[in-house]
């Protein structure tokens, strides 16, 4: 199970901040989340949204091991 974290407006839109999801890759995870909430799936693929696996930014698809933390990060505001 991957531990999925949403931040900023993505968490507001989804109505949750953290959830465990069974998925073997980032692409598979996106499919699972989209199937559950299509508008969230679109938002996660939107401009400026970055993905971090275990707190490191990744681009494109990547495999997910068990107990991996996957964070979807909307554009950052600065402090």
């Amino acid at each position, binding site marked *: 199970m991957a531990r999925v974290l949403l*931040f900023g*407006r993505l968490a*507001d839109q989804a109505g949750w901040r953290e959830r465990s999801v069974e998925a073997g890759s980032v692409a598979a995870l996106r499919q699972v989340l989209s199937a559950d909430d299509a508008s969230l799936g679109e938002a996660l693929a939107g401009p400026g949204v970055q993905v971090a696996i275990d*707190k490191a930014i990744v681009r494109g698809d990547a495999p997910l091991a068990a107990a991996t933390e996957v964070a979807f990060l909307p554009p*950052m*505001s600065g*402090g």
Partner: protein
Amino acid sequence: MTAFPSISLTAQSFEPGALLTTFCAGRDETGAVASFVGLARAEHGQAVALELEAYPGFTDVAIADFAEAAKARFGLHDYRIVHRIGRIAPGEAIVFVATAAGHRRAAFEACDFLMDWLKSRAPFWKKEHGADGDRWIEPTAQDRTDAERWD
């Protein structure tokens, strides 16, 4: 909340004067300490509160990477960064930055540099709770221009 003693992300309000006193203590080779305190604005009643979200273990690491680069660039002896997260009322301190160097120019410039970066590039998400509802805020063009001065 963070593994970096020079950097704190805190949901508690803090007293800037006490931080500065602590930062200045026990130095006999530091000729200059510069500091900056950012406060939450009321925006003439438009802003009820700010809410800042961080990603612990990601936000603090990003700040540490940048601050250590600043320390090398400006030859700092030391620095201290305290940043509020969570809900912040108008008038409360959001950020405290202090820099210590041998001479004033490096201390001033490093403090300015750190603030420009924190305001535009630090991984926070900021929501303004206003009289007319809530909105997520992104860096202003001015924030970006300020940060680009140092590139």
